[in-house]
């Protein structure tokens, strides 16, 4: 698909604000060298001399996330000449954000990230309009997302990414006019990735779900009976002792007194078992599932994402097809490749996934299987047969109660061999066809 066609959409153009008077002599001279001149690698549709005036002024971009990546993305977009930006983030600023989220200062702790970030960018970069929404991406409907040309994600949550990806693929289904390019960035310590997703055309986020590092989950029997690691003691404190000793009280992992309590309990257990290594910091890391994050990696990945946005919008260079992996702990390493679309992707594929299952498997165990399988990883799967019989529905409660007895039944009693099951999930706008073979 040509880059130009990606941008020929019917998004309303932003009204011309007072931005014209904010152009001082030479302001865009660096960027205009690229936009006023053709290069040998440009898209054929590139039109020299129009970039800054037409494309950048007529492009609405949505930035999802105003954290480590989001702050960088907003800055880069504003400096690259994007004039109409919106940012969504549901979080408020925490002191541990300050080592990389450079739009925030100690006095901002507790304020909404989206608001502070938007205001800072508008204060520093003249003539750019940044609107914000402090809330969840799930609050917004299809029309809202259709109102942007481009969506850039700088999220740390897999769930939110799966949601926006599935939403944009659904919107684009059957109508290429409704394709909205999604650029996704993610980091973890010294590693990260930037990718360009053209819904229904390229592979999507869900296509690559099995590339995620699986989180280490400790078996409950180890935690309860044979702890060996400091992590086991911390899990014991939070999973077993908290509900027992502080029944009814909700654990707040942002409350230092709660972390302190967990640390004390874990430390006591560790001492009992001669286990070393329980610290306050580790306790916090385990219960909050903290991912290390630094300014450098965020800068690299956010810049890679915004560079793609700039190239796509201006057609001044070819854009990334479609994945750049970055690894920075041993020298500087990138791997750029085309991630392949999966025919049986639950979001963008049109083929059924085939699963071999034990002929004795119960519905309940089958649901566990769907949760565990790296390519599927659903939180709350509901199952329906292809003849529209409910096997098990997680919600609403009325259907849950009615279908619950099926959990103990063998799957083969409800679905014949080579039969297809429609799997849906209330937390994600997806529907997956699974064809089972009994072995």
């Amino acid at each position, binding site marked *: 698909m040509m880059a130009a066609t990606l941008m020929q959409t019917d998004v309303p153009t932003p009204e011309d604000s007072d931005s014209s008077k*904010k152009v*001082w002599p*030479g*302001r*865009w001279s*660096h*960027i205009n*060298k690229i936009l*006023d*001149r*053709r*290069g040998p*690698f440009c898209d*054929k549709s590139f039109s*020299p001399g129009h970039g800054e005036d037409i494309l950048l002024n007529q492009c609405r971009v949505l930035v999802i996330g105003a954290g480590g990546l989001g702050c960088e993305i907003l*800055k880069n977009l504003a*400096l*690259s000449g994007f004039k109409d930006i919106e940012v969504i983030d549901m979080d408020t600023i925490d*002191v*541990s954000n*300050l*080592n*990389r989220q*450079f739009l925030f*200062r*100690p006095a901002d702790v507790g304020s909404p990230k989206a608001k502070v970030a938007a205001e800072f960018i508008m204060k*520093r*970069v003249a003539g750019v309009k940044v609107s914000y929404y402090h809330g969840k991406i799930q609050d917004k409907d299809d029309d809202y997302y259709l109102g942007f040309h481009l969506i850039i994600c700088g999220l740390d949550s897999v769930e939110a990414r799966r949601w926006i990806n599935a939403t944009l693929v659904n919107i684009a289904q059957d109508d290429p006019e409704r394709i909205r390019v999604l650029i996704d960035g993610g980091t973890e*310590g*010294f590693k990260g990735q930037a990718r360009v997703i053209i819904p229904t055309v390229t592979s999507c986020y869900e296509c690559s779900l099995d590339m995620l590092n699986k989180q280490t989950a400790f078996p409950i029997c180890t935690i309860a009976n*044979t*702890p*060996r690691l400091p992590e086991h003691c911390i899990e014991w404190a939070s999973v077993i002792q908290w509900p027992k000793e502080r029944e009814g009280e909700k654990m707040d992992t942002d409350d230092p007194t709660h972390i*302190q309590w967990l640390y004390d309990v874990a430390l006591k257990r560790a001492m009992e*078992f*001669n*286990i070393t290594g329980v610290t306050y*910091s580790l306790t916090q890391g385990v219960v909050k599932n*903290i991912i*290390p*994050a*630094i*300014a*450098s990696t965020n*800068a*690299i*990945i956010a*810049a890679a994402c915004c*560079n*793609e946005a*700039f190239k796509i919008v201006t057609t001044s*260079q*070819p854009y990334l097809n479609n994945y*750049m992996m970055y690894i*920075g*702990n*041993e*020298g*500087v390493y990138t791997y*750029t490749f085309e991630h392949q679309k999966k025919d049986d992707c639950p979001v963008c594929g049109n083929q059924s996934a085939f699963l071999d299952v034990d002929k004795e498997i119960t519905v309940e165990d089958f649901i566990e299987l769907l949760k565990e399988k790296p390519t599927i990883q659903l939180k709350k799967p509901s199952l329906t047969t292809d003849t529209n019989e409910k096997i098990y529905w997680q919600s609403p409660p009325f259907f849950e109660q009615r279908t619950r007895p099926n959990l103990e039944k063998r799957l083969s009693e409800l679905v014949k061999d080579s039969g297809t099951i429609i799997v849906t999930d209330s937390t994600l706008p997806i529907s997956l066809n699974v064809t089972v073979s009994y072995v």
Partner: protein
Amino acid sequence: MNIDKKTQKYDRQLRLWQASGQAALENSKVCLINGTATGCEILKDLVLPGIGSFTVVDKKEVDGADAGISFFLDEDRIGTNRAQAVTELLQELNEDVRGFYLAEDPISLIENRLDYFLQFTIVIATDIPEKPLLKLSEALWNANIPLFIVRTIGFIGYFRIVQPEHTVVETHPDSIMDLRLDVPFPALEQYAKTFDFDSMDNMDHGHIPYVVILLKYLDQWKKDHDGKLPCTSAEKKQFKQIIESGRRNVDEENFAEALANAWRAFTATKVPHQVQEIFNDPACETLTANSSSFWILARAIRDFVANEGQGLLPLAGSVPDMKADTSTYVSLQTIYRQKAKAEIAIVRSHVNKILNSIGRTSDFIHDDEIDSFCKHAAFIQVIRYRSLKEEYISDPKKADIDRWLQDPQDNIVHYVLIRAIDKFYEANNRYPDAATFFIEGDPEEATEESKSEFELLKTYVNILLSEWQITNIPDHLDDYIHEICRAGGSELPNMASLLGGLVSQEVIKLITRQYIPLNNTSIFDGIKSASSTYIL
């Protein structure tokens, strides 16, 4: 216990480089030459994690173009000194970092007061022509101060690290596995013997640690095979079958772990090649009063290996998690840890002997340094860099460049162009800057002027290639000449930020002496979104 504000603020990075790395950062003094957009982005990513101080050296007056691309400038600062302006706005990022500036011309500083730069931990040079760069790099090289040379032009980013040597102990390998299954030490061997598999109930049998399972079956195997380990693939397969036959049921995860880790038992424990090379290094052979603690420790380890270690490195002393009950696992951990402790004590005595022989007191090297060195002994790294003089003048990598350049996908073409525009700059005091590539329908067409810009840059490319005796000039070079004429020396905010991230990351590695840094050149192509590393 209460966590202080600073620990809270730096929590997400302390998990990567711990308090020791943070302390090194907080003691560092970073110098940036020229407050370019790229330079400011580098400093941003260093001020945020909390370096001690930064100093910007720049005489330029901020113009409209500077203010347009840098987040650390704005319209109001047009006409003021760039060093001062960016220092003020960078300083805001972190109250724990001190910012300084010197509104002087860096090139005349290099000419006249070269010593000025010797006060810094690291110097980062952006936008400095070849000649003064060579002079600066030599002075820093002699003083053992790392220099970063950074360029962004259009969609291309380039940086080079110049310093004589970098040594790393804490390389942060994915895992440190040192189980000694093939050569168990007496305490470990004895411990394994205390397990009588057959008499155990199912509960206990399912909790024998896999280390013990492997040791037990290996011991039996050695008895049956003249003391030899499984060697051929048939033998390895047979060994695994023996383990499998000892498994009481498929649910025994510990046996599954033993099977999955059986290969470790077949792999001989030995000093890794790169560590052997470090032992053979003249810096390890001949120690002086000026030797760094790294080399003194490397020598002490070498002496340990040659004597008490009987050919092996000191034991790392850590045990990975494995299926086991608590007391068994803790006992196993204790056995490894005690052995490691005993060996650390021996290494300490070697260290003291060496320190004494070179006229230093034993407190020159602390116990925790020895602990860490012994733990990471199999992963230590020494990187010797090439000097800029070698790269530019005395020993350019002609053959390598020639070979890389023949591949149209290789990023080395950008290096050739960056070096060529430096030559262009030296002769014309400006960068190539014109539209030179046109197709039908473009509003403008090629003019004599634009054609001559292309030809002029091509002349410098050809001079460079002939200096390197590269005669086979590939066709794809022309495209990149067009592209760099188009870029006209511009800095794009995205590329500035991307390079800022890459360079700051490497600066942090050098300052903290953790993780493995780049050797020695990185090029990022923002057209393809791909980077390459070269030793130039």
